[in-house]
């Protein structure tokens, strides 16, 4: 036992862990060029043991402790040292506060990792939302009347059948693509036969795409499903977030508007968003796939989206200009508390409300938007992070601790010199 304790309170362990942390962060940063930010995070930082690395197109055989392992060991090391070595002296006060601050930071990050959720809220001016969309989770939904049956994307495993009591049919997953592309099947140009002739797949080609590596894009999944009643098959369909997320339908519309003109693009977009339905036992089910919705007990209405740019920076070569400010004026309606008030959300000034924080994320409200006749819209990033305060507390503690230690030594240094000089 003594040996174990000695191991965990040793300075050597700290030193070794710090050294490994430096190597890990360095490798994990270089690897981002190859593996992408998310890939590298999962491979190096949110990981216990790292095996192999990709750097500048080379496969490097190595084994490293991952971020979780280093973090946990550092935490144990720190906590044990605190318990076993704690003694109150002025000389060590600063160091102790600083290390306690590091503990707060590490614990805070761990809990953020486990508990935080990142969502988004898209709306155009005048629209009201009482839910946020997940940017990483998706759901297949079946709507019958006012009944909504949601099947999380995670449950749709390729080759398997999903059954639920709420639906009179089973869903067989024939294919599932984490990221996919959509293309309009121009009647003259279509080479390969359609995946299926039901619903949107008759007019659109869906195919698998490489997973996204950058932070400013996201995966857009699609699934190929067959709906089966106990007696027969209702057919094969494609359900895709391309069709179920209005923001993406808009993207498709504007990209086609450039090549085939607005009128045709409008038709393409409405075909993509057209509801797909099956009727079983006299009941009609319409279905699509969309980002997972998380409902709030309150709603936000976008009153005005403002996008200002620096004067003279909008030019034919840079139609966006240099952005100066984005801000969204929203109204909070909370039936539970009777609240009805307006707030402004802008860059660096988020709204913290109801356990969530709403950040100004993207905006489509510039001169281009108005010229194209689109309604101004805004995207808020919605984050739930119960431990958001820990960095503030931890940073203050470490700062204060180090300053105390610094000042203590400075005073000693100066008094020493003075006694030496006299």
């Amino acid at each position, binding site marked *: 036992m003594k040996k174990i304790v000695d191991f965990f309170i040793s*300075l050597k362990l700290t030193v070794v862990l*710090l050294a490994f942390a*430096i190597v890990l*962060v360095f490798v994990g940063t270089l690897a981002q060029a190859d593996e992408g930010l998310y890939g590298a995070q999962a491979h190096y930082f949110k990981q216990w043991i790292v095996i192999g690395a990709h750097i500048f197109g080379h496969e490097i055989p190595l084994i490293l402790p991952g971020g979780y392992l280093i973090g946990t060991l550092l935490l144990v090391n720190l906590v044990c040292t605190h318990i076993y070595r704690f003694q109150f002296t002025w000389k060590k006060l600063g160091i102790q506060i600083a290390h306690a601050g590091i503990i707060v930071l590490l614990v805070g990050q761990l809990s953020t990792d486990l508990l935080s959720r990142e969502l988004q809220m898209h709306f155009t001016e005048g629209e009201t939302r009482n839910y946020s969309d997940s940017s990483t989770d998706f759901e297949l939904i079946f709507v019958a009347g006012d009944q909504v049956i949601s099947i999380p994307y995670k449950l749709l495993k390729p080759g398997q059948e999903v059954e639920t009591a709420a639906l009179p049919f089973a869903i067989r997953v024939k294919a599932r693509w984490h990221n996919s592309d959509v293309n309009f099947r121009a009647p003259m140009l279509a080479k390969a036969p359609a995946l299926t002739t039901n619903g949107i797949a008759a007019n659109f080609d869906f195919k698998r795409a490489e997973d996204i590596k950058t932070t400013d894009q996201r995966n857009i999944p699609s699934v190929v499903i067959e709906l089966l009643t106990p007696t027969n098959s209702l057919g094969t369909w494609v359900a895709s977030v391309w069709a179920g997320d209005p923001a993406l339908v808009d993207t498709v519309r504007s990209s086609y508007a450039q090549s085939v003109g607005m009128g045709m693009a409008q038709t393409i977009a409405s075909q993509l968003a057209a509801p797909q339905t099956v009727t079983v036992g006299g009941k009609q089910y319409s279905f699509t796939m969309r980002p997972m919705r998380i409902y709030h007990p309150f709603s936000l209405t976008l009153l005005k989206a403002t996008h200002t740019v620096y004067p*003279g920076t909008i030019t*034919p070569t840079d139609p966006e200009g240099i952005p100066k400010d984005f801000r969204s004026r929203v109204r909070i309606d909370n039936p539970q508390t009777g609240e009805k008030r307006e707030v402004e959300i802008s*860059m*660096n000034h*988020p709204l913290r409300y109801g356990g969530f924080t709403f950040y100004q994320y993207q905006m489509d409200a510039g001169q281009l938007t108005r010229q194209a006749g689109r309604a101004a819209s805004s995207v808020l990033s*919605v984050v739930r992070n119960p431990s958001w305060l820990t960095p503030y507390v931890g940073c203050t503690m470490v700062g204060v601790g180090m300053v105390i230690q610094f000042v203590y030594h400075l005073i000693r240094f100066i008094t020493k010199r003075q006694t030496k000089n006299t």
Partner: protein
Amino acid sequence: MAVWFLGNLQPAKDKNFDFNEFGQLPAIDKGRIVPLDTIARNSLLLIREKQTLNTEPWKSWNGHPRIISATEWMANLMMNPTVADAWPVFRIDNPDLISLLKLPEKDTAKQSDGKHYSWNQIQPVLSVFDKENSRIRAIEPSHRTAYENSVSKLEQNLFVYVQLKNTVQPGDASDWPAELGDFEALIPAGVAAAEAQQAGKLFNQTNFAAFAGYVQEFQYMANLEPPLIVPPNGKQDWRRMGDALLAAPHGTPIDNAMRDYANMAGALAGNKPDAFNAALNDLRSRLISQQTKAMAKARAEVFFNQMEPFYNAMVIYVLAGLLAFFSWFNLSELLRRSSVWLIWLAFAIHTVGLVYRMVLEGRPPVTNLYSSAIFIGWGVVLLGLILEHLYKNGIGGVAASVIGFITLIIAHHLALEGDTMEMMRAVLDSNFWLTIHVVTVTIGYVGTFLSGFLGLIYILRGLFTKTLDAATGKALGRMIYGVVCFATLFSFIGTVTGGIWADQSWGRFWGWDPKENGALIIVLWNALILHLRWGGHIRERGLALCAVGGNIVTGWSWFGVNMLGIGLHSYGFTQAAFFWLMLFAVSQFVFIALGSLPMKLWRSFQTPPASEIPPTDQSLV
């Protein structure tokens, strides 16, 4: 020396054309109010890598070549291009490009220095250049050879040149005031002809063709997106001259400012200084009453440009560094003292420049890579001076002046990329966070670089000279330790506040972005050094070696992560910067290797230094 610096501040008044006043006129470029002087200097820096123009570069310095200011050059380019087009302003270094364009080599008789060429020399071979350029455009910037890079650099420079040429008048105008008058007189008839043509009725062919010619010309001017020089007037905000001219037929008449510019152009082309100054004065007096703030800002910035504080400080740092360095060898207190005074002088000038920039921009000291270099230099010099004050051994002085000099050189090269006071994009537009995060993290860089440099002094001085006695060695060890503590504090706070800023603006505290990771590595590295020291794993020499490692880590975080081309802080890849960074990292590794040579090879410390005996106090110091 202070007198020399102050003497430089007030430029000689122009005897005939008042180009100095011309340079103080405000305009809008890249979203901010700038004096024409700044546009001129930045453009000339881009094109010629100097802030002045030598119109006779083939003459040696004692042949007294004619050197003119950036403003005089730009005034001529904008308003008297027949003269400006003959000046050798394009700097071309690449021999392949020079021979491709069949440009003359160095030949004094033919008035060529083999490096600087005029528009008139390049213009006839533009078709050859275009062909080559369109091939190179398809190649990714990071895959281009030195020759290909020089082609695309020249393209960029030619574009800036043409842009400036079309700022005040159409680039090919020969008598602009007269042409402007003709255009104005033609407007009613021209509009009538154009409307008739549109409506499919009979129209006056001559009027229509002449009018369409003007419109096409002005459209071309506007499309080049030159700076906005026409000041606000009534409902109109700042405008480009081309746009203002195009608006004339639509009921926004040609205003006095436009006429003033035209009159200046006419006077300059006709070599009539009095008429030029009169038109300039007319414009100025109107701007002073209507655009008081913009005028004041432009004036202040011109003063700053002429002061060249960073250049002057750089020169003094070199001198001071040499004095401090020699003071190590003959141990002359006089040399050391004079070096300290010189560093204080340079530091004062450096500080004036830094503060002046902050006031001009209304921003904290660090807003981009350029200003981070200026600020790192400033911080290191301040810390170095404090160390010198405490230890009085010439070490702080050498560190201060050498790093001061190097960072200002780096800043000078970063300034070649363009405007250094560009506007902040929306996310960054927060003085509070820029101060709390960016400045703090930069102070962390300051500490790490200083400790690394002290480590270098320890290694090089100990290994190659006999001047490092036990006492000095110990003092150096203490300096390094103290500075590492300082660096740990600031890099830690800077890194975490960066996270807090990210949390405030995106809702995530830590995203493993390369720049964040770079800062984290600095924190970890410093923490590692401290823990190694506390555990007694390293002593004086180990501390020095580790501190040099800190240089690599900081260099990587400052520039390296930007070169990965990913993440929020990516500024693009420059091959030259990559080369220098690699050279820097390799050199630091070499120094660490040198420092690891066995002690018997060191020329200093041949009697064992006191501190190599294990310290009695094993605790935290």
